[in-house]
């Protein structure tokens, strides 16, 4: 979190993240280019750039897509999620080099504007095997550009988190387009089953990790029925670790119930920044801290500490006979609610 917008707020972790990322990129390119020159010395520099950047960007996109579900499956992946936008912007730049060289090589210096040529040079839109696959890559690159250009929190704030998140979910559309770009393009010429298998394995990896995360998520969440008082019994007080939360979904309300300083407070589980799971965060310095990007909220009123302005809905809680209850009827965002006091024998 930062009050002012700066290009990047560097710290040791970010520098290490970027260094590791760049080292892995260099390793991939060095092996790919080196082996190409040894095994296929007739390759032209243009083709070498196009194929190496395509392979690298596609691989990076897989890593970007599985970081989210991996972080839900194991919190030790969270540092990868925290700086994922660095990986995303870098992947776009690599894709852009691929797109630029491809456009220049295949569509420039001709009798038609190259942007038009992408869409008209192969008119077989009705055929699957002959489909103009470059159009798919072009559209994917546009999506990746939009995402990279709006990756900064400045745009998150100005577009609103809802629109920003929706825009960035287009990464899945881009991934689908790129898979088809590869299948209907280079795999029509490079017919090795190993290459087709690699694309299939990548797809399975992305789908598999997302499914695994979704299944784990569903197991975690408990649905309760409300009592006449509208309070719902959630769990025993001791079931919630100190400074941590229990997450429940009641009547579509995603609620994180925190235990701290002998008190119980409940706020909405969805962070205003990027929909991170606040209930998987912790209370640090008196504030609920989102595990994804460290956004903070005061547990009793769901408001970010000044000068920040993010707010989430809050809920009434009570403790009776050693059990925690919550009223799933939400108060408006940022409404202060008196925390439930845990009797001394339950603390």
């Amino acid at each position: 979190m930062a009050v002012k917008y700066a290009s990047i707020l560097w710290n040791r972790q970010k520098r290490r993240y970027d260094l590791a990322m760049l080292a892995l990129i260099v390793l991939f390119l060095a092996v790919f280019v080196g082996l190409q020159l040894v095994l296929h010395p007739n390759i032209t520099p243009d083709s070498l750039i196009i194929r190496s950047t395509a392979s690298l960007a596609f691989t990076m996109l897989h890593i970007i897509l599985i970081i989210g579900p991996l972080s839900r499956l194991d919190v030790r992946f969270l540092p990868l999620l925290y700086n994922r936008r660095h990986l995303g912007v870098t992947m776009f730049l690599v894709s852009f080099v691929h797109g630029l060289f491809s456009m220049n090589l295949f569509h420039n210096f001709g009798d038609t504007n190259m942007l038009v040529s992408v869409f008209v040079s192969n008119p077989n839109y009705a055929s699957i095997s002959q489909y103009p696959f470059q159009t798919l890559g072009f559209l994917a690159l546009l999506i990746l550009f939009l995402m990279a250009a709006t990756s900064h929190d400045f745009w998150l704030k100005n577009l609103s988190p809802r629109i920003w998140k929706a825009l960035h979910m287009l990464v899945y559309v881009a991934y689908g387009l790129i898979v088809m770009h590869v299948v209907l393009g280079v795999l029509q010429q490079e017919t090795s089953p190993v290459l087709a298998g690699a694309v299939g394995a990548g797809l399975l990896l992305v789908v598999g990790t997302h499914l695994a995360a979704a299944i784990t998520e569903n197991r975690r969440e408990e649905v309760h029925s409300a009592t006449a008082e509208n309070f719902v019994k959630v769990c025993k007080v001791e079931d919630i670790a100190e400074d941590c939360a229990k997450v429940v979904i009641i009547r579509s309300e995603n609620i994180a119930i925190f235990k701290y300083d002998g008190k119980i407070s409940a706020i909405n589980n969805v962070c205003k920044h990027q929909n991170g799971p606040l209930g998987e965060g912790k209370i640090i310095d008196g504030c609920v801290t989102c595990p994804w990007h460290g956004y903070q909220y005061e547990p009793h009123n769901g408001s970010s500490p000044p000068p920040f302005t993010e707010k989430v809905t809050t809920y009434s809680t009570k403790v009776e006979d050693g059990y925690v209850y919550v009223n799933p009827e939400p108060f408006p965002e940022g409404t202060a609610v008196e925390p439930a006091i845990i009797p001394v024998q339950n603390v």
Partner: protein
Amino acid sequence: MQTKDEFYVGYQPKAPKKYGRFLTWFVVLTALVLLSLASVLVWEQSDYANGTFELGKLSEVEGVLRVRPVPMLKVPLGKDINGNTLYQTVLLIDFGKKGAEEAIQKMEAEHGDLMGKVVRLEGTLIYHDGKSLLELTKSEGAFISAKRDPNMRLNQFKELGFQRLQGEIADPKCYFGVMKPGEGKPHRSCAARCISGGIPPVLKTINGGTVEYYLVLGANGQAINQEVLPVVGEQIQLEGQVEEQDEWKILKVDQPLKIERISGSLLPNAPMCTPQLGWKE
């Protein structure tokens, strides 16, 4: 259960130890995966043709210019053991994705009729599989000199008769060296741009491992580039009269143009020919 110290917050300078250890191993594992993946991706690729495009190197080439139906230069290479002059016929194309007609017309506008004259041109050589092309890198500026030489003349076309041929239409500039791969689906759009820009289409056929190339023209020797655009890069069948000039064969496709698509690229694309040898005046 996590302790407070183990909770990860990205804007803090250091990650808790358990994260650091885990991520170190993850980075090492990722490095091994990337190393293997890059190797497999390269290992499993098909090899590239050994065509040459002498990018950045301009060569001067002198020979007898044929302006129509396709600009070519018949270049003397030396003499055989019997003292006969050996020639190489070089296909001329312009810079970028463009045929050489316009550049030759501009040369003729300035230097007069060049058909059959010995012309010296400067350009970038492209060669592969016994075929040579010269890119007029400076377009009409490629012209150096022209003269008449009664000892150097253009050959007559040798008529090879009606043939039905199966193969892929490619653009000769990319196929013979500028791009690798210069054929097939990934290259299709580029080939379409080149052919649309006036570079004569070439039908590549394979017969039992022997590759043949046919410049594709209309029945009267006119360009039919726009007509063949929809099937560039696909396996097709064409038929018509075949003529030969030195090492270049020309397929004059029957009109109205009849193109048959061949489903799948694994079908043998053997030329089925009915040769009727003879000389055309």
